[in-house]
């Protein structure tokens, strides 16, 4: 390729190099090398980059490893077809891979649950990025749960906060559930510190979380007014369970 002098020509030159090298095609870059520089080094560059991307995708989709024997082959196929987008992170590239996987491969229902699980974990990261301050504030509150939980029913000033970083999903099979014989279940993903947890949410627990989603931060006495009368006695215990899981905090 001839040496370029204008910005437009330079833009076109880099577009040509980057778009091809991003998927391991070294021909354009090799044609533009300085005399004495070897195309084998361009191959070293692109092979190294693709391998790093492969490793990062494995890491970004680690949940799938137990449910998808062909995962590594699919990743290898994907990175040769779909280039990394500018500013992609491990998570955004992983998410794009999962969408591709769901569309292009004939997955079983169980495998689709693994994909849902991984996507739920990615979604937590996306929500936390947008609500970083809320995540930090809630985690600070969470660190006080051990001290404040004993005061739940005696301290009228205590408010109940739902973890603002949470994502709902549904598993359609028992592949990822403790009760493997059961059908599907509604699940929630949420962070505790830098870990992402998953919990099956059903019955009174689901109702309570939806109530907190709708009403925001609430004191126990106000929550009692909105909670069904026949389950009133179970409410403090339910809150304690959710607090111990890291889904609600007191403050």
């Amino acid at each position: 390729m001839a040496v370029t002098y204008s910005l437009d020509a330079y833009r076109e030159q880099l577009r040509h190099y980057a778009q091809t090298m991003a998927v391991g095609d070294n021909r354009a870059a090799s044609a533009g090398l300085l005399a004495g520089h070897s195309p084998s080094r361009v191959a070293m560059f692109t092979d190294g980059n693709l391998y790093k991307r492969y490793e990062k995708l494995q890491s970004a989709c680690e949940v799938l490893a137990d449910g998808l024997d062909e995962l590594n082959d699919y990743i290898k196929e994907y990175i040769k077809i779909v280039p990394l987008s500018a500013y992609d992170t491990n998570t955004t590239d992983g998410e794009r891979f999962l969408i591709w996987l769901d569309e292009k491969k004939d997955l079983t229902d169980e495998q689709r649950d693994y994909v849902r699980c991984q996507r739920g974990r990615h979604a937590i990261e996306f929500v936390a990025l947008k609500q970083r301050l809320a995540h930090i504030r809630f985690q600070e509150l969470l660190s006080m749960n051990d001290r404040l939980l004993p005061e739940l029913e005696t301290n009228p000033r205590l408010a109940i906060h739902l973890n603002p970083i949470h994502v709902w999903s549904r598993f359609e099979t028992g592949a990822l559930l403790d009760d493997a014989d059961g059908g599907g279940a509604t699940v929630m993903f949420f962070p505790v510190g830098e870990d992402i947890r998953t919990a099956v949410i059903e019955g009174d627990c689901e109702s309570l979380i939806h109530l907190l989603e709708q009403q925001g931060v609430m004191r126990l006495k106000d929550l009692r007014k909105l909670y069904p009368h026949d389950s009133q006695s179970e409410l403090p215990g339910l809150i304690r369970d959710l607090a111990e899981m890291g889904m609600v905090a007191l403050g």
Partner: protein
Amino acid sequence: MMPAIGYAIREQNRPILTDPAINAAEITFERADEPLRVDRYIRDDEFDLVSVHALKLSVASPDAPNQHYLEALRAIAQENNAESISDHMGFTRDGEGGVEMGHFAPPPYTEAALEATCRNIDHIQTYFGDVRFYLENIAYLFQFDGTMSESEFLQRVLRKSGCGWLLDVTNVYANSLNFGYNAYDFISEVMPASDAVQIHLAGGYWDDKAEMYIDSHSHPIPDEVYKLYRHALVEAGGKINATFIERDQEFPDEDGWRSEVRQVRKITEGVCRPAVALR
């Protein structure tokens, strides 16, 4: 001026970051920008100088870095009281909305690349204001056809943009071995082009199969790199404000971490704080 000295922070060296030989830290932005992080990246540690090292500004691309990336970089810099940011003299992507190659390649050293690079650095420096930008020379596997040498390109970028130079001594060493130029001359040529310099030191290995030195950040700093570092300290005449050691693989034990930074401090003090002659 005696440079501040420290490590690029990795989880493996966190236990020794309070060593008295360490008074600087470099944060790799892509490691620090974790969405679920709760603490600031440097935690409660205190340093005289903190710098944030980015990987995706892609200063040689035809378009300026995007606003979201700059905002995230600034957030990490502010959160950790960083006084400088840095990235590499290369391109990792094409234009806005394009693709990412995964690692930086050197641009073709042409007038057009020079213009794009300086314009992008201006954009970055305007955005960051008092947080100074440092441009790192890279280790490369190949060069594209161009109209000037790497040394000339780098000097002209530094002079025209006014940014700092992040002199990666090991990258100069690797390129000099792999492409047959004089590393001492390269440092001497470029050093006058910027009034503020930071240093990277690392160790790689000679790959017999590829017949080249690989800058893998996986080995102790080689003696030749220490010699070049001493040369850089002398040539800089006091304008180096920080020296960072990088290690990304085959991590040493605690004694290894401590002895390497102490060795760097000893060499630095030997040049920057000469013994006072007795009357």
